[in-house]
């Protein structure tokens, strides 16, 4: 994403170079010119390296060893997502980390692995090895293993066994498989313009579960039963019934909204005062539970995601949000009576991630809403940024908002700040951890009203955060943004013009439905494009 971090540099005054009422990049914006149509990252390149999270889940399914991915470097994100295939180039540090991880996993796996035919690790022998490999390699590669592959691994087994014995030989084979591109990448190459049935099975499984296909899906692939939209939809329904589907959807939302690597420990100690030890874990759990319930379990909509009047709270969160009568550590579905809390954008985890360590975060919150929630591009700051702000007249005290507004009145600042600041004003009462405050440090009530411009081609007034989130929930922009981001997530690349054309009806249907997620997912999986490799350069 071209302007990923532009505004945080300024702490506030980022778009000074935009003269007039509307940032140049937004004036007359044509939806086909969205920032997500990126020249270099929209092509299908035939391979998609498993992300760190996908590697962890796949290794757990394959070998029963959990947490292997924690030792790997983070993935290089593109447009907020970790699974853009163009960003998943395996570098030197990755090869080294994968080697260490694979050896550790293999050493662990051979102590517990279940072998076919009553074979034992310590006395494996050639026949038992062959039986193991005939099962293990195809599962690891998510497709049949070639004779050449089987021979290569057999040669490694034999050579290691001769020197170091059966157990080490088996560990060497497992470690080699985990470092093999056959395991690390899923291919989407196809044959004659159509993906192979194995490739379709992996595309479906990683999309819905974030891990390798299970036996039933592999069997369907083996029988080439994934070509018809109905058969894919039937598999999708089966996969959606599992809690793995929920977890994978929340992974998408957390990455897209930048909630994944947020840490409370970065905040100033003064704002952490009085928070119980389980606060951070509870806020993460709340957001995950809310996303998973809304989008998958309840088959709900993006409108509900942003405007819901309920959430999932335990005693810690209930105390924090001021909801009486909730005890215990377990989350439960709770109605939120107050206007202070409406939907995802008012949950504490949002502020952990996007508010500063201390103080106010008008621009940070504005940028979060514009870039992530609405998929709008922010222009970069100019070369000659002069960010000196006007001082108040002598003897006058300005509130934080008044200070911003004085700055935003200047012609050079006007366009960007009118675009960026109002969403931040709506959330002024929320402190850096998401605590709601009635009054500012001067004892004055917060002025949270504003005008949300550049929304669905118009603008709308709001009085406070509840109003604001209702506007977001009702907008086409928010649904379109969700659909666009999910579309990129599904295909592991930015979108090409032909994607936007092909998926226009699907996005329209999604908006009409209020943004019903499982409907979008079903339409994606049924679409003819789902069995095709995608556009190449």
């Amino acid at each position, binding site marked *: *994403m*071209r*302007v*990923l*971090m*532009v505004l945080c*540099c*300024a*702490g506030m005054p980022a778009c000074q170079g935009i003269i007039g009422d509307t940032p140049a990049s937004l004036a007359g914006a044509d939806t086909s010119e969205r920032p997500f149509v990126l020249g270099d990252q929209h*092509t299908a*390149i*035939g*391979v998609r390296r498993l992300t760190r999270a996908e590697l962890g889940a796949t290794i*757990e399914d394959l*070998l*029963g*060893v959990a947490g292997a991915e924690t*030792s790997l*470097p983070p993935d*290089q994100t*593109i447009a907020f997502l970790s699974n853009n*295939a*163009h960003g998943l*180039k*395996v570098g*030197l*540090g990755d*090869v*080294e980390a994968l*080697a260490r991880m694979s*050896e*550790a*996993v293999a050493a662990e796996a051979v102590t*517990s692995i279940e072998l076919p035919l009553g074979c034992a690790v310590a006395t494996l022998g050639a026949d038992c090895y062959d039986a193991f490999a005939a099962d293990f390699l195809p599962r690891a590669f998510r497709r049949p293993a070639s004779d*050449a*592959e089987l021979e*290569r691994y057999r040669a490694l087994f034999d050579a290691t066994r001769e020197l170091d014995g059966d157990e080490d030989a088996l560990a060497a084979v497992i470690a*080699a498989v985990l*470092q*093999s*591109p056959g395991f690390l*990448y899923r291919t989407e190459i196809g044959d004659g313009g159509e993906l192979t049935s194995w490739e379709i099975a992996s595309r479906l499984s990683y999309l819905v579960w974030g891990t390798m296909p299970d036996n039933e899906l592999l069997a369907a692939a083996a029988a080439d039963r994934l070509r018809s939209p109905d058969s894919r939809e039937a598999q999708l329904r089966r996969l959606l019934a599992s809690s793995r589907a929920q977890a994978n959807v929340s992974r998408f939302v957390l990455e897209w909204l930048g909630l994944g*690597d947020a*840490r409370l420990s*970065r905040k*100033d100690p003064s704002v952490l005062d009085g928070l119980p030890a389980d606060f951070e874990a509870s806020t993460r759990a709340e957001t995950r539970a809310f996303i998973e319930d809304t989008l998958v379990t309840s088959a709900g909509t993006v409108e509900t995601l942003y405007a819901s009047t309920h959430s999932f709270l335990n005693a810690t969160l209930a105390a924090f949000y001021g909801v009486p009568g909730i005890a215990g550590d377990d989350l439960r579905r709770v109605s939120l009576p107050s206007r202070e809390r409406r939907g995802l954008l008012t949950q504490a985890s949002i502020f952990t991630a996007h508010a*500063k*360590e201390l*103080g106010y975060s008008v621009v940070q919150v504005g940028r979060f809403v514009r870039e992530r929630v609405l998929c709008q591009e922010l222009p*970069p*700051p100019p*070369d000659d*940024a*002069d*960010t000196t702000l006007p*001082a108040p007249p002598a003897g006058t005290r*300005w509130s934080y908002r008044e*200070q911003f507004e004085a700055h935003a009145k200047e012609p050079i600042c006007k366009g960007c700040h009118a675009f960026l600041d109002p969403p931040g004003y709506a959330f002024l009462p929320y402190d850096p951890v998401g605590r709601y405050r009635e009054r500012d440090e001067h004892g004055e009530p917060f002025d949270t009203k504003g005008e949300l411009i550049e929304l669905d081609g118009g603008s709308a007034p709001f009085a406070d955060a509840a109003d604001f989130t209702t506007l977001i929930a009702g907008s086409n922009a928010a649904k379109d943004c969700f659909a666009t981001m999910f579309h990129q997530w599904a295909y592991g690349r930015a979108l090409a013009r032909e994607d936007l054309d092909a998926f226009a009806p699907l996005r329209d249907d999604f908006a009409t439905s209020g943004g019903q997620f499982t409907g979008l997912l079903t339409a994606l999986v049924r679409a003819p494009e789902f069995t095709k490799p995608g556009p*190449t*350069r």
Partner: protein
Amino acid sequence: MVSRKLDRREILKHAAMAALIGPAMRATMARAADPPVRRLVTIFQPNGLTYIDAGPNGGETSWDVGDHFRPYERHKNDLIAFSGMHIGGMQFGTYRESGHAAGARSCLTCMPDGGNDFATGPSIDQFVARKLFEQRLAPYVKAPVYAVGGNGADPANHWQPWYESSGRKAAITLQPRAAFDGLFAGFTASTGTTIDRVIARKKSILDLAHADCKALLPALPPEGRELVDYHCARIREVEQSLSAVTPAGSSCEVPGAALEAVQGRDVYSPSSYPALAGFFFKLIDAGLRCDLTRVAGLEFGYAATRFNMPWVNAPLIGEVGTGEYNVNDHHSYHHVGNREILGRFMTWYADQIAAFVDLLKAPGPDGTRLLDSTMVHVTNEFGGTGTPSDHYNGNVPMFVFGGGGGTFRTGRHLRYDNDGRHHHALMVSLIKAMGITGVEQFGHTAAGSGPLQRMY
């Protein structure tokens, strides 16, 4: 199948063992490298200088390190300080804003963006590590980068200066355990069997991965082939590097105790930053002494990190009209401007770096100092014009500690005139001082060629 967590205690046990078996293992190893060994460390600190006269100033031989770099005073004779340097490379980009992003992308790569927020070439450390290997000056390709602080986020997903290649950031390690393993895990693998056997097996495994990698290529479209072929080449590099792990300087010590001292610390909490900086610098020092790497990097935060330092006791900014309010982090002060308080932030980084140089200056058993074969390059993402909150990528305070084995005349201050070409030339000088031949140009080709003559 029962799911099992990798046992961290088990791994820690190995670390302790490493401290024991390290020396024994090394005794069996041959010495490597006939040409003089040269080492390079790159260090990045976030935000800018703002007050130009708080950085290096004065003449070439009669000069001052500047208020904000006072801890460097004790190393004055071992460094060259630069003023009036402009970040190279960025002026050739398509996304030409001045500031954090451009400075971060270009301050170690001297390359512009590719229109998509990624630099279009490798940073000097990664470039040097690969060249050392290609020219048989080092028996391995190794260039780890570590990070301290990141405002609770992973630096990998923000503007960072280190690139392995065009569009590919270098892996940055935040976690002490992973950083330690990246250098010293090889030492632990020899329990129960000989080191030769262990290396041979690792090589066979990587060789098989390489064969699988090559077998995948023909079916792929060109872009995919390029991406996977890059992976194949890295597998080969790691394999060849492994076969040559034959380290040992006389002062090599596995920093197991340093690791244990920071194990379990929250790497995202500012209260951990001082301890983590100490650990990573100790790790780099040990990695260099044990000759497990010739190149390393350390990042404080990432570009534009607010970088909270509760221990410098910066008061909350409450002045109306400053653009910042009720905050007290480094980035915000950079916008607001306060020479004295910005000095507290800047001096903290300088303190950590100066302490690292102290480590490099500690003589080994044979009386030599690591610093005499090591160059440490320090940069920010921008400098300043004297106006708070500007984001000018000129007047960047840069420092090179160590004379590259007598190559450079240290103890001087070199002033330039904010022509980005000097930055490219500085990089060429460092590359040449590493013993690398045939490189006359670094970064964008339009910036000219040749070293920075005044360094010699």
